[in-house]
């Protein structure tokens, strides 16, 4: 229940252990990240090169922020929240520390992505994040039965009742808003307008709930339910669709006509991280094109590493081009930073949808 107390105690225990053992123990990097972002092979290569052990903890945006909030930014040396989840939590809880860009080899990054992430993660003149992996949310469809679905709202057209799955988190609200012809990002700054907009989206989703089979939580869960044939159309991450496509050519990821939702997961330093130098070494290590390509192979998503895309497998490249004709790439709606307080509005809406019958 009490995360702060537990967190502090744990931190104290860890600190004591570290203080007592540091002369004998090798240097450690405590990394809080997403599944697939730190494959065993990459970790082993990093340890071999630098002598630093990597402790990997897997999580998602909300849990990362909650964990750091509980310890006021301690317990990890490097975290990987999405770029839109840095500004708000930083203003609200102060859980990150600024990045020293002189420690990072900027030449390894795709310049446009680096600049965009820097501007999205700036708080009071300080930069808090650099980009790592990017991807999109859109539609995963079994084209043999659900080719009529072209946009998020089409999931609710009644043709696939009981075979639809969505993930009941903020992306579904944003995606449906665009699909309804609204612009949620334009309303970010105006709490009242945003509340109205979200209520419209909620009404649509509540009407649609009958047709939804399940709210999926993790990528593996969605893949299992599509593989079993229980779900034929879903709002999901691109990588899930491509993994399914490898096994069943009918299933693939489709960019919705209102635009796929683009996210970028970043590298950020926790406010009370203890090994910044190891964190910078890790960032520079995994942004090398060959290493980044290895991560792409496991995670299924492309990275912000300059030159790594050419090294991706031919199959993944073909899948990507199939899902994203050039126009669809321009059509991607990239998440701007979520202002503090917006999550409260979305939370109430999500509660309403979850509880509706």
């Amino acid at each position: 229940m009490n995360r702060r107390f537990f967190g502090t105690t744990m931190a104290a225990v860890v600190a004591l252990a570290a203080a007592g053992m540091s002369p004998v123990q090798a240097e450690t990097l405590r990394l809080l990240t997403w599944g697939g972002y730190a494959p065993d092979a990459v970790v082993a290569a990093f340890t071999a090169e630098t002598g630093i052990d990597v402790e990997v903890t897997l999580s998602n945006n909300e849990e990362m922020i909650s964990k750091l909030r509980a310890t006021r930014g301690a317990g990890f040396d490097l975290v990987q929240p999405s770029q839109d989840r840095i500004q708000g939590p930083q203003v609200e809880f102060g859980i990150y520390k600024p990045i020293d860009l002189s420690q990072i080899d900027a030449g390894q990054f795709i310049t446009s992505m680096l600049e965009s992430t820097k501007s999205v993660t700036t708080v009071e003149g300080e930069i808090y994040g650099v980009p790592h992996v990017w991807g999109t949310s859109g539609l995963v469809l079994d084209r043999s039965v659900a080719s009529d679905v072209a946009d998020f709202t089409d999931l609710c057209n009644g043709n696939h009742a009981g075979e639809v799955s969505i993930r009941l988190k903020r992306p579904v609200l944003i995606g449906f808003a665009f699909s309804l012809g609204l612009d949620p990002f334009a309303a970010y700054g105006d709490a009242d307008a945003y509340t109205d907009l979200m209520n419209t989206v909620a009404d649509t989703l509540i009407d649609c709930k009958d047709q939804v089979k399940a709210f999926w939580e993790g990528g593996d869960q969605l893949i299992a339910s599509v593989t079993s044939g229980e779900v034929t159309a879903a709002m999901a991450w691109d990588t899930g669709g491509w993994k399914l496509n490898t096994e069943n050519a009918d299933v693939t990821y489709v960019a919705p006509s209102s635009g796929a939702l683009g996210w970028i997961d970043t590298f950020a330093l926790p406010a009370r991280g203890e090994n910044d130098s190891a964190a910078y070494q890790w960032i520079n290590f995994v942004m090398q094109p060959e290493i980044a390509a290895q991560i792409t192979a496991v995670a299924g998503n492309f990275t912000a590493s300059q030159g790594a895309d050419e090294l991706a497998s031919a199959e993944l490249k073909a899948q990507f081009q199939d899902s994203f004709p050039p126009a669809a790439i321009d059509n991607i709606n990239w998440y701007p930073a979520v202002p503090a307080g917006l999550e409260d509005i979305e939370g109430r809406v999500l509660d309403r949808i979850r509880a509706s019958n």
Partner: protein
Amino acid sequence: MTEIGSSDLGATPAKLPTSVRRQPGVARLWFYLLLLPPVLWLGLLIILPHIQLFILSLKEKVAPRVYTYGLDNYIGFFNEPLYWMTLLRTATISILATALTLVIAFPVAYYIAKMLRGRTKNLIFVLALLPFWVSELVRTLGWIMLLRETGIISNTLLSLGLIPERVELLGNDAAIITGLVYTSMLFMVVPLINSLDSLDDSLIEAAYDLGGKGVAILREIIIPHAMPGIVAGSIVVFMLTLGNIVTPAFLGGKNSIWFTDQIYQKFIVRFNWEQGSAFGFLLLITSSLVVWLGLKLTRQSLAKTIT
């Protein structure tokens, strides 16, 4: 020695021999030493966090990192039907699940305690415990395998031709209650066996000799005797059910509305620890209230249940 001892202990009468006089001091020291772990346990892990939680629940956010104190989080709970309906629903289903568990567990416990003897008794008892050697998570996943649309039950019914197409058995209240009853079975069976074991068989025989019928004996002899076990089991099962998060979430699917899930959402997904703490307290109050009401209605006391 004597002087220090008696002045330290104060109340010890001077008449007693030295050895006896020193005894209470040592005994008291032991008493405090033995008391220390539970006091630390309660204090550090239960009372202290709850105080912090309570303080947190009174905080109101004005702006980022600016808070005042007030009852907004509690008022918010009563102003939003969604929240109190969820709590009401959670409590109702928990009571229902507890009652069902009791109805199913009672014959099982009676059979084990009264009908079986020796090794068979132990064997059947262990069989009843066996499912609890695996974690709750695994047991719940087992139910998912059985109940899902492409699961065992649905497929079997389909292949027997009893249903025209696959049915989804997950995602409804019945699935949640099934899971909850299964999960809490053990916690009802064990106290029931305990209390039924102590019932002298000759009392039942005597009741038959005096012309009592089965139902009357159950009502007049067996249930009154087993009452402490019933109450203890029901309290434990109710608490576990009310505080359960895995079973409703997994088996209820998109329709799982459970109060603990609301608390989780508040803390982890919405970063609203303040209201989450308030919800935690409301859950604590509700469960205490229901248990208190249950004890009043059955005219039992907690003390009687424990002994």
